């Protein structure tokens, strides 16, 4: 039985279509990330599921019940907002219990659930404080607690971590995922941050201009991008796409290595990131197109230095230049040997002595 089912969902404002023909479903207990660049329609999609935005067409059903036109409060959803949307004049406890009181849940049941959830998100010491007295991370926990306490079949999250600083965001990411798995929550998580989606989600729905670009596990999106948009969006730095006539050859920077012999290249720039260095290399054989490669540690090479590059054939991706679609529809097999892969020797990547 599918928990959330979205069929043919569209949203248009006049001529412009924010979301068009979206189809997907979420299974119980699944953590699904709705990923995409800003303006791709992911927040609009979430709002339509929440009932805060009226869809132009399409059907949304939850546990086989059509909820497309129900009022937000009648859908049985919980939601965590980007701004947390805490009630500033109410204490933490009142914030968490707001929904239960509005639904007239008995007082002792409220207290039982409050105690449970406060322990879960570690807010026990702050229940009487106002949101203004809390840190960003604590506000985040209150918003989370408010969503958990409802015990809703589906929890929507709208970029819940984007207002936190980087360190806290990393901590909360792990904590949120652990909490979701412990409670068996079903989560639809909107984010523009691929790291969040890759690290937390069971499945990713990648949106581009209101359409589903690809849907699948994080590994699938990383290993087998269906089109150039996915190839460029997933991975940091993004996949190299080298023009070769009517096709594009894609190789991820982390899969490019320097070798004794291979494709000749010239260093055009280095970007030191601490754990590794991103090197921009020009390929004279391909009209001086730039290829990025990732080398571990501090390896800032002089500009203009000659390199030999190589990569394993199974790390190649091919796309149609005009449509951007993936060309090898069957799984990339080592038998397809395009011109450049002959350059590759199975020589091991030696990272230490390059200069």
């Amino acid at each position, binding site marked *: 039985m599918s928990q959330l089912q979205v069929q043919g969902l569209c949203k248009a404002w006049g001529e412009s279509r924010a979301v068009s023909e979206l189809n997907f479903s979420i299974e119980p207990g699944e953590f699904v990330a709705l990923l995409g660049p800003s303006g791709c329609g992911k927040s609009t999609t979430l709002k339509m599921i*929440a*009932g*805060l935005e009226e869809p132009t067409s399409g059907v949304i059903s939850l546990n086989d019940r059509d909820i497309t036109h129900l*009022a*937000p*409060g*009648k*859908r049985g*959803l*919980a*939601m965590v*907002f980007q*701004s947390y*949307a*805490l*009630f*500033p*004049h*109410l204490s933490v406890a009142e914030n968490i219990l*707001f*929904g239960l009181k*509005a*639904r007239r849940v008995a007082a002792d049941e409220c207290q039982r659930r409050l105690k449970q959830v406060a322990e879960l998100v570690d807010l026990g010491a702050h229940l009487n404080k*106002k949101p*203004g007295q809390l840190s960003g991370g604590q506000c985040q926990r209150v918003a989370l607690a*408010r969503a958990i306490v*409802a015990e809703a079949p589906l929890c929507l999250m709208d970029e819940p971590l984007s207002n936190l600083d980087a360190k806290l965001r990393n901590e909360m990411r792990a904590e949120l995922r652990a909490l979701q798995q412990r409670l068996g929550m079903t989560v639809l998580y909107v984010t523009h941050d691929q790291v969040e989606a890759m690290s937390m989600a069971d499945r990713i729905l990648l949106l581009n201009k209101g359409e589903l670009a690809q849907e699948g596990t994080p590994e699938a999106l990383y290993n087998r991008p269906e089109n150039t948009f996915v190839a460029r969006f997933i991975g940091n730095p993004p996949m190299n796409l080298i023009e070769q006539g009517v096709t594009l050859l894609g190789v991820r920077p982390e899969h490019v290595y320097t070798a004794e012999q291979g494709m000749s290249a010239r260093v055009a720039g280095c970007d030191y990131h601490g754990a590794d260095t991103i090197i921009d290399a020009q390929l004279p054989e391909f009209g001086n197109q730039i290829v990025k490669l990732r080398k571990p540690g501090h390896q800032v090479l002089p500009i203009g230095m000659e390199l030999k590059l190589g990569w394993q054939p199974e790390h190649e991706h091919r796309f149609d230049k005009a449509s951007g679609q993936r060309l090898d529809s069957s799984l990339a097999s080592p038998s397809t040997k395009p011109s450049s892969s002959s350059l590759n020797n199975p020589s091991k990547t030696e990272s230490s002595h390059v200069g």
Partner: protein
Amino acid sequence: MKRLSWLHAWLMLLPALAMLMAFTHIPALTTIWHSLFYPARGSEPEEFAGLDNYRMMLDDDVFWQALSNNLWYALVTVPASMVLALAMALWVNGKIRGRGALRLAYFTPTMLPMIAVANIWLFFYSPEIGLFNKVLGWFGVAGINWLGDTDWALPSLMLMTIWKEAGFFMIFYLAALQALDRDIYDAAALEGASRWYRFRRLTLPLLMPTTLFVLVNAVLNAFKLVDHLFILTKGGPNNASNLLLYYIYENAFSFFDANYAATLTVVLLAMLILLALLQFGVLERRIHYR
């Protein structure tokens, strides 16, 4: 350096301070001083009266009448215009067609001068040709002498004041409503809170700072605004619609008893300060400020 910045600060404060001193603080002090003297007769110097003026005031039936009128006037017009203002603000804050025109329509009474408003309402209230009596006549109800009847004069003034003030207070509520975070309403809607629940638990408490501000101003206005009395009733009939400030004016400029007028002014001032302190004291602690 420190001395220089002190000097700087005082120089910056000086213009406003000078104006306040000249037109507020010094007159207030001289008012108290004047209230302690008998009126000057001819060329003789004023004679010190002590608290005699205050004793006279306590025996003055018209004072008590004006005071009770004014308290009733405040008790009715303040809550009525505030509730009306909030209702109108909630309405014109919603997504409705022509809300710009509607907002303007509600605000028009505030833009008109009180004297002009009173002249318009004088026509509504006039016994023979007045609008209200015409409408009553259609239903076969006998007309009322709105401003000439001791029972109706004060309520007639109250009605007009509510009409005039509500639009003004609406602007404050409207501004406050627009500053509220939309997300918390979305969150509340998702939590299954009804419209009434959202109004009671979110809107009303979050509007409390505005409510206090409006309340203090409304109470002050209820004692301060008497322009319409000059046009409509002149405090009559038989002081039925007399208000404190108008009575002060009468004493000072009709009866030429500036000292008694000063006495009444001191009492009015003390009362207003007391009321303001009371409102802040009672409400301040319950208000959530962002």
